[in-house]
């Protein structure tokens, strides 16, 4: 569901008068909403985020809003309640998913692994190297030291490294989601935007 143009334009203008900045602020707000619904356990976080943005755009025509992200949070909480009420009615359907035939599931898992490979190939090389190097530090005592060394190599603070890897993971996850939507024959995903 897409917001109506007038409300959507108003939302962009409220986020930032500069159209370029408004677009990135909008992307940031949407990402925050998706994360909110995801961490609160909604089964379709993206749909819930879009529903929230549509309502937010509509509300901006009716009321004066000082803090748009805080207002969006309030609307998101209402949407979450509605979503959770709906999901509780479908709880038994989730159980059915768990007992799907094993062969089919194994094939799906193989497909997902292939998708992951494609998604990693779609990342800029530096980003891919960073992501894999981050996980190559292992689990033992050397993990912290290894990640500190990686941060120094990339001239980042340890926290900045974590954040960068976190965003890369998000990008891979977005790619995987779109691959799943495409089906098993999806092509190579090319990531838009800059290296994060």
């Amino acid at each position: 569901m897409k917001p109506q143009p007038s409300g959507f334009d108003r939302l962009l203008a409220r986020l930032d008068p500069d159209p370029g900045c408004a677009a990135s602020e909008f992307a940031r707000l949407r990402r925050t909403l998706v994360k909110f619904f995801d961490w609160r356990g909604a089964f379709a976080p993206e749909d819930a985020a879009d529903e929230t943005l549509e309502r937010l755009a509509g509300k901006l025509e009716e009321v004066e809003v000082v803090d748009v992200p805080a207002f969006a949070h309030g609307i998101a909480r209402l949407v979450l309640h509605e979503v959770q009420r709906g999901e509780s009615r479908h709880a038994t359907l989730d159980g059915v998913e768990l007992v799907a035939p094993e062969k089919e599931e194994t094939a799906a898992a193989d497909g997902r692994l292939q998708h992951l490979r494609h998604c990693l190939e779609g990342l800029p090389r530096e980003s891919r190297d960073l992501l894999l190097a981050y996980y190559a530090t292992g689990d033992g005592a050397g993990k912290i030291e290894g990640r500190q060394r990686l941060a120094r190599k990339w001239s980042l603070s340890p926290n900045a490294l974590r954040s960068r890897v976190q965003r890369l993971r998000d990008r891979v996850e977005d790619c995987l989601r779109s691959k799943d939507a495409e089906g098993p024959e999806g092509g190579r995903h090319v990531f838009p935007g800059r290296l994060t």
Partner: protein
Amino acid sequence: MPDEAVIRQYLLGETSEEEAQALERAYFAKEEALDEVGAVEADLLEDYLAGRLAGSSRQRFETHYLRTPEHRRRLAMVRSLRAGAATPLRMRKVLYFFPLAAAAILVLAVLAVVWALRLPGETHLPQASVLTLRLPLVAVRGEGDIPTVHLRPGVQAIDLALERGQAAPPYAILLRTVEGREVWQGRSQGELPVIRIPAARLSPGDYVVELSGEGDAGPQRYALRVVQPRE
């Protein structure tokens, strides 16, 4: 920046509504806070995969966090990333030692032929074997102490001897991956819950065993890890 312990509780659904809202206000206001929650989530996933989550946190992770398909997919992705990150290094080592390995294989092949000629008529079959593993209840398991099966060549079945706990026979037993995929289910009629699972049904990864007994309120859970040593 929000407190890491509070973020972990938030992700496991253990905060009060007030605490949850305070954290959300922080990450709606500042992108750094949003990234921090994401990074703590990633640490949580890694801790789970490394067996570093203590009993109650691990149980909460499985029953609350892994409830959604998105989170199960995320866990699978991190597991694959960890596995994928480890592979290139090993591959580089393999390539480095390839000429030496090729020579060693040639020597071994010659020795094998000589050995076969010395023992005419004797057949060498890989020995069939059954591994037995005792699984304690998740609630009493210590941190980082996941019972692990090493699927070596020749292993044909695994006997899992489950701690009985409060359950009473007959038992219904379900084995599933931590992502929720059912792998095997069966029944055990004996006094103690013991099940045999064909090794072919298992692939490397983390599993949850659920045991339900006669008249139980809910299943008892056990953690199991399967690894495949490289030949």
